[in-house]
C-alpha cells in the first residue's frame, strides 16, 4: 500500500514545536488543497491535535512523498526544515499503515487508551473528504483504522479503567454500590475539587446531593448547581447517615470524622456501606475509619494509587491490542495485494479473449457459412478452452499475491504470458 506519513507527536517533540506545526481548523481546507495542487498528491489528509500533527498521503513513490511532505510542513508553517528535522518522524507503506492503526486505537496516545483520539482521526478524515482529497486508498485505509480501533475497544479492556481522580472516585463508587442510581452524596466543604468529583458522580446517576459548608450561603450556592440540598452545621450529624458517598474537602486543620463517628454512622445505616473520599490536605477523616466494616475511605494518595494501577492495567491490555493491530495490518495487506493482482488477471483474460476472437474469425473464413448450432459449438469450445487454460494461472495469481515473498513468482507468471510491462 503506497502510503507515506510524516509528523510530530508528544513522543518526539515538546509542545513549543508541536504548536508551531499545528494546523488550525480554519486553515485545513487550504492546506489540503495545497497538497493536492502544488505537491500533486492524489490523496491526502491532515491530523492536527494538541498532541500530534500528522500528514498522510497516497503516492506512487513513498520516499519521494516523504520529502515532499516535509517540505510542505515547513513551508506552510514557515519554519526552516533544519530546526524541525530531529522532531519529525516518517513512515511509509506497511509501517505507515501500522502507525495509523495504532494512533486510531489510542496505542500511541499520551494516556494509553484515551477515547478522544478516535474522534479526532474521524474528524480529520471527514475534513479531508469534504476537501475532496480522499480517494479509494485512503478511504479503505482509514475505514479499516476505525474498525481496528473499535475492535481494540471491544476486545480489550484498554479503556475500561479510570485514569483521572474524579473518574477513579466514580469507578470505586461503582465497585462498592454497583449502580449509583438512588444513591446520596454528601459534600463536606464546597471547593473546586469536591464540586468536580460530585459532578462526575451526578452524571453517573447519583440522585441526591447534600452540601455542607462552613458558610451556609456557599453551601446553598453549590447545592443549587446540583439541585441538591444545603445542610446547616447543627443538622450535619442528623443528615450524615443519609449519605452513601461522602466527599470531604474542608479547610479544617483537624479530623472532622473519626472512627467512633464511623461506627455510629454504620450502626445508624444498618450496615449499608459508606464510601468516603477525603480530598482535603490536611486530611479531614481519620484513616482509622477505614477499619470500620462497610466503610471505605480513600484519600487523595489512595486515588492516585488506583490511577497508577489502572495505567499499569492499560499497559498490559495494550499488548493484546498490539496483537490485534498486527493481525489487521496483515489482513489489510493481503486484501490490497489481492487487489493488486486483479489487474494482472484481467489483462491476462483480455489478452486471451483478443487471441480467441482473432483465431475464431480466421477459422470462420475457412469454414464458410455455418448453422447457428455450429456457431454455438465453436463459441463454447473456444471459450471453455480459454477458461480451462486460465483457471490454473488465475487462482495461482490470487494465492501468490497474498504473500509479499511471492512477488517474483507473480512477475514470472506475468512474463510467461507476455504481460510484463
Amino acid at each position, binding site marked *: 500500500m503506497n502510503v507515506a506519513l510524516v509528523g510530530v507527536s508528544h513522543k518526539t517533540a515538546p509542545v513549543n514545536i508541536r504548536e508551531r506545526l499545528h494546523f488550525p481548523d480554519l486553515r485545513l481546507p487550504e492546506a489540503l488543497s495545497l497538497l493536492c495542487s502544488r505537491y500533486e498528491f492524489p490523496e491526502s489528509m491532515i491530523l492536527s491535535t494538541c498532541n500530534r500533527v500528522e500528514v498522510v498521503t497516497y503516492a506512487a513513490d513513498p520516499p519521494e512523498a516523504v520529502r515532499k511532505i516535509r517540505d510542505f510542513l515547513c513551508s506552510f508553517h514557515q519554519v526552516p526544515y533544519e530546526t524541525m528535522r530531529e522532531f519529525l518522524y516518517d513512515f511509509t507503506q506497511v509501517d505507515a499503515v501500522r502507525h495509523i492503526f495504532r494512533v486510531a486505537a489510542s496505542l500511541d496516545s499520551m494516556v494509553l487508551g484515551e477515547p478522544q483520539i478516535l474522534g479526532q482521526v474521524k474528524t480529520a478524515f471527514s475534513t479531508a473528504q469534504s476537501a475532496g482529497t480522499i480517494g479509494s486508498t485512503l478511504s479503505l485505509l482509514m475505514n479499516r483504522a476505525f474498525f481496528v480501533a473499535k475492535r481494540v475497544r471491544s*476486545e480489550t*479492556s484498554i479503556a475500561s479503567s479510570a485514569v483521572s481522580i474524579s473518574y477513579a472516585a466514580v469507578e*470505586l463508587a461503582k465497585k462498592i*454500590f454497583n449502580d449509583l442510581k438512588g444513591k446520596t452524596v454528601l459534600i463536606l466543604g464546597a471547593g473546586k475539587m469536591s464540586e468536580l468529583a460530585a459532578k462526575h458522580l451526578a452524571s453517573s446517576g447519583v440522585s441526591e446531593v447534600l452540601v455542607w459548608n462552613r458558610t451556609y450561603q456557599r453551601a446553598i450556592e453549590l447545592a443549587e448547581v446540583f439541585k441538591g440540598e444545603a445542610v446547616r452545621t447543627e443538622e450535619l450529624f442528623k443528615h450524615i447517615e443519609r449519605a452513601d458517598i461522602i466527599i470531604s474537602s474542608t479547610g479544617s486543620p483537624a479530623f472532622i470524622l473519626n472512627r467512633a463517628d464511623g461506627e455510629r454512622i454504620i450502626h445508624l445505616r444498618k450496615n449499608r*456501606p459508606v464510601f468516603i473520599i477525603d480530598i482535603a490536605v490536611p486530611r479531614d477523616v481519620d484513616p482509622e475509619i477505614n477499619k470500620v*466494616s462497610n466503610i471505605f475511605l480513600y484519600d487523595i494518595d489512595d486515588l492516585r494509587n488506583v490511577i497508577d494501577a489502572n495505567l499499569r492495567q492499560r499497559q498490559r491490555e495494550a499488548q493484546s491490542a498490539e496483537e490485534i493491530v498486527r493481525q489487521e495490518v496483515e489482513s489489510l495487506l493481503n486484501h490490497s495485494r489481492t487487489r493488486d493482482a486483479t489487474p494482472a488477471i484481467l489483462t491476462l483474460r483480455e489478452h486471451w479473449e483478443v487471441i480467441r476472437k482473432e483465431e475464431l474469425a480466421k477459422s470462420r473464413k475457412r469454414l464458410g457459412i455455418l448453422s447457428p448450432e455450429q456457431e454455438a459449438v465453436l463459441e463454447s469450445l473456444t471459450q471453455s478452452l480459454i477458461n480451462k487454460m486460465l483457471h490454473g494461472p488465475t487462482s495461482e495469481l490470487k494465492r501468490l499475491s497474498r504473500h509479499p515473498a511471492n512477488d517474483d513468482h507473480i512477475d514470472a507468471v506475468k512474463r510467461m504470458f507476455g504481460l510484463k510491462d
Partner: protein
Amino acid sequence: MSLFLLRITIALYSIGLLHSFLTIVTRRKTLFRVALIGIGSGFLSHGLSIVYPWIEGRQPPITNTHEALSFFAFVIVLAFLVSYARYRLDSLSVFVFPLVFILTLAASLISSPPQPRPEILQSLWFYIHIPTTFLGYAAFFVAFSAGIMYLIQENELKRKRPQAFYYRLPSLEVCDDLGYRSLSVGFPLLTVGIVAGALWANKALNQPWGWDPKIIWSLITWLMYAVLIHYRLSAGLRGRRAALMSIVGFIIVLFTFIGTRHQGSAHSFIQQ
C-alpha cells in the same frame, strides 16, 4: 447410554471451565460465549443422562452415590444458569465450574451398574426430599461463591491497591445481593426438603425423626441459615459478616453431604 451422555457432558463442561478461566484471565468477553455454549450444551446432555434411565422405565436416578453426585452437579449448573440470567456474572463460573467438573467426573468414575432399588426408597416424599434438598444446597453454593467474591473484592477495596481481582470481580453490592437472594431461595427449599424427609421417614420407617448424623447436621445447617436470614432481615446484617456466614454455612453443608456419608446411618441405604 446414560454413562456415555455423562462423558459427553464432562467434555462439554471442561470446555466451559477452560473458557471461563480464559475469560477471567484475559478479560475478553467474547471468550465467554464459548464458555456459555459449552455449559449450556453440557447442561442439556447432563439432563438427558439423568432422564434417560427414567424414561427407560426405572425410577428417577437419585439414589446411589454415582447418581447423587451427578444430580448435585446438575442442580448446581441449574443454579448457575439461573443466577447468570439475572446477574450476567462471568466471574461466578470460575467458582462454580471447578466443583461441577469434579462432581461430574467423580460421578462418571464411580458409576455402578443399575441395581434394584430398595422398596423403602420408592415413595413420593422421597422424590420430593432429594431434589429440593439438593436444589437448596446448590443455592447455598452460589451464596458461598458470592461470599468468597465479596471477601476478595472487599479486601481489594480496603487495601486500596487494586490488583487483578479488583478488575475482574463484580461490585460488593452485587456480591451481597446475589448471596442474599441465593439464601432466600435456598432456605425454603432446604426447609421443604427436611419436612419431606421427615414425612417420608414417618411413612417408611414409622418414625419421623431418627437422630442419625446426617439429620443432626442438616438441622445444624438449617439453624445456621435461619439465623443468617433472620439477622439479614431484622438487623440489616450484610457485607463481610453475611459473606463469612454464607461460607461457613456451605462448609457445614459439605460436611453434611459428604462427611456423614459413611458413618453408618439411616441415610446410607445403598451401602447396606
